[in-house]
């Protein structure tokens, strides 16, 4: 395997990891207004992802950094081309990030409800837009011979990409619901399980439609196999969830997300950003990549440090493995006296 193929694989892994992890914390953010009946519920909901959401988001930064290092042309064309979409994602991620930190700092109900809205929109918008973006990467965008994007914001809003957006939005919402059911007790757990039932049909139909469209228009044998695995895993996740097997439901839903992302990357390969206008505009793993030396350096770094990162992130999940319930939220609304803990 050539090093640029290895880096294509690694970037696919980083994006899969990002969607697998931030997927559920987006989902939890989206469900926040719907599953919780009072502030205590909302605090439990947020606290299920509290210790991990920031670490999950670093997968995005690493995917971005790795793309910059390994495929500078891809990074340059993609980020300048998808300008306004990325701007929206950035604004959403900024607002969402501070919302988690600022929300608890005042007991005032209006203050908290404003930040709850920020968490909702800050989660829903990227969940939708990442799907739109990835569908466009697979579908291709107009690029000139210098690999510069020649479309505009609305070029990105084609039917295939919009279906991609609905797929990620519903899939991440489902992922969040399954996660919440796994991490909570009592009423919250029941309402998370009810949310699974409501979101699942949408997610299954959207994902099946989107993967089918991908296979028909852009797919190959290998991506078809992986897409089928994704669809089966998704159905399995829903089935397990209905039987109350929350651990299995989450595992299979995670597998569905990873397989769906893998199917997209397999369909894309060996291109990284196809051009729909000029053939010479198409970016591939070869013409977009860095030099062999840079890729070799970065491969060493990745091979040595990725296992370390995976180990301590896994340890975090282990430390916070317990389900949360109303009993875990200490005393009266804590910010009225003093925000709880150090935060």
């Amino acid at each position, binding site marked *: 395997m050539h090093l640029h193929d290895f880096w294509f694989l690694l970037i696919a892994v980083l994006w899969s990891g990002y969607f697998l992890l931030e997927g559920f914390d987006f989902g939890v953010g989206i469900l926040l207004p719907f599953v919780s009946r009072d502030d205590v519920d909302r605090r439990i909901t947020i*606290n299920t992802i*509290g210790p*991990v959401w*920031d*670490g999950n*988001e*670093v997968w*995005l*930064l*690493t995917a*971005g*950094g*790795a793309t*910059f*290092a390994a*495929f*500078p*042309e891809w*990074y*340059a*064309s993609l*980020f*300048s081309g998808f*300008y*306004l979409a*990325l*701007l929206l994602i950035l*604004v959403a*991620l*900024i*607002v969402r*990030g*501070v919302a*988690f*930190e*600022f929300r*608890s*700092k005042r007991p005032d109900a209006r203050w908290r409800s404003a930040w709850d809205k920020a968490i909702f929109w800050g989660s829903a918008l990227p969940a939708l837009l990442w799907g739109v973006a990835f569908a466009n990467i697979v579908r291709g965008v107009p690029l000139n011979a210098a690999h*510069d994007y*020649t479309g505009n914001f609305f070029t990105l809003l084609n039917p295939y990409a919009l279906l991609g957006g609905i797929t990620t939005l519903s899939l991440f919402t489902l992922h969040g619901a399954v996660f919440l059911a796994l991490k909570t007790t009592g009423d919250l757990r029941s309402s998370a399980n009810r949310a699974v039932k409501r979101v699942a049909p949408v997610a299954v139909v959207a994902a099946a439609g989107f993967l089918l469209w991908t296979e028909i228009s852009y797919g190959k044998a290998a991506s078809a196999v992986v897409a089928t695995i994704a669809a089966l895993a998704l159905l399995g996740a829903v089935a397990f969830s209905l039987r109350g097997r929350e651990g299995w439901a989450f595992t299979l839903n995670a597998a569905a997300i990873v397989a769906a992302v893998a199917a997209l990357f397999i369909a894309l390969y060996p291109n990284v950003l196809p051009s729909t206008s000029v053939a010479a505009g198409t970016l591939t793993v070869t013409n977009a990549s*860095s*030099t062999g*030396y*840079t890729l070799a*350096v970065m491969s060493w*770094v990745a091979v040595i*440090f*990725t296992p370390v*990162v995976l180990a301590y992130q896994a340890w*975090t999940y282990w*430390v916070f493995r317990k389900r949360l319930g109303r009993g*875990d*939220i*200490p005393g009266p609304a*804590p910010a009225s006296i003093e*925000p*709880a*803990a*150090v*935060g």
Partner: protein
Amino acid sequence: MNPLDLARWQFGITTVYHFLFVPLTIGLSLLVAVMQTAWYRTGKPQYLRMTKFWGKLFLINFAMGVVTGIVQEFQFGMNWSDYSRFVGDVFGAPLAMEALLAFFLESTFLGLWIFGWDKLPKRVHLLTLWCAAIGSTISAYFILAANSFMQHPVGYTIDAAKHRAELTSIWAVLGNSTTLVTFPHTIFASLLTGGVFVIAISAWHLRNKRNVDIFRPSLRLALVATVLAGVGLGVSGDIEAKIMTEQQPMKMAAAEALYHTSKPASFSLFTVGSLNGHSEVFSIRVPRVLSFMATGSLNGKVEGIDNLQQQYEQQYGPGDYRPLIAVTYWSFRFMIGFGLLAALIALIGLWLVRRGQLPTGRRFYTIALWSLPLPFLANSLGWIFTEMGRQPWLVFGRLKTEAGISPSVTGGEVLTSMIVFTALYGTLAVIDVWLMAHFAKAGPAAEVAAGDPEPVFAY
């Protein structure tokens, strides 16, 4: 305004804003880690209360640093795609390493620290904060290595056909002399920022003799840190100036608005009148100081702007190779001045708290409180100086700033994003300052006994 100016303004606004939070994150993380270590070692509840009080302010600030940092990583590709294409093979590597080695460490272990009070053994819990602090510090190293490549490109060749710089030695890039000196300078600046922050807020409480058991040790720790940081800044800044003179002589000339090569060269404390080299009304000059700053010798030769301009025209072709002199001249002075002033105030404070004493009267406390903006101004001006002083280059001697922007992005798009970020950042600044002030004034929790069950939740 054209897309180039807009993209530059946006980079300036978002980066200066981001760097208001970053040094405070690094500085405070180290100070809070020291406080928690003191608690771990002695078991005194006052150190736990200190840790929690400053930790809370640290976390509010940290959130702002994190979210504004995401923009930075995207912005190169969004507004500066031709720059990204030109440098990606070299510049991308430290950026990717920063994410993998530093950001994961910082964010994961901070999550463990915030939520792990009752879940982890004390020693492990302390270790999580140190890991997060180390993560923040390492992140500074990698981003400075990337920036240093723009100031002083090393370890690369130019592939003319592909029109890009290609990495030939990662060790040269990571061991760039510019990085080796800007890294300690930045870390000392961060420590100074964290130190002054703690000094100012402690002074506010001590002025009214509130929570003396918390704020006296806080003050003392911060005074020591700030004085040490001041010394470190002086030493590293001195070496940096000499390296800069060697690598980017135009920047040094622009820092002094020195038009004609001089031997020896004097340093002007300030100048009245225009800085164009021939309409100076009045200035206070210290003889030979610029020679010493730039070369280490009181009689050293410092090259002037006009001479360098001629030299660069021969070397790089026709063009204007002068940065905006008024910006470099004043930012350089005020960076040094504000930093020095902060360190001096801390030195006086250190004298006043000797042998268990506390400053009497209100004067010191008032001055200490008002010193709060100094490090933030110095940090911002330092970056404005070093980035503006590199102009017209984006990568010194290799790529001009005008050649780095995104060809596919319109002025309207850049303007849109600039307005959005400015409005969003402005709003968040108001909320952040309000929250910080609120919790700074509220003071530490009344009682946090060691045996108390620790609250679990931060959110």
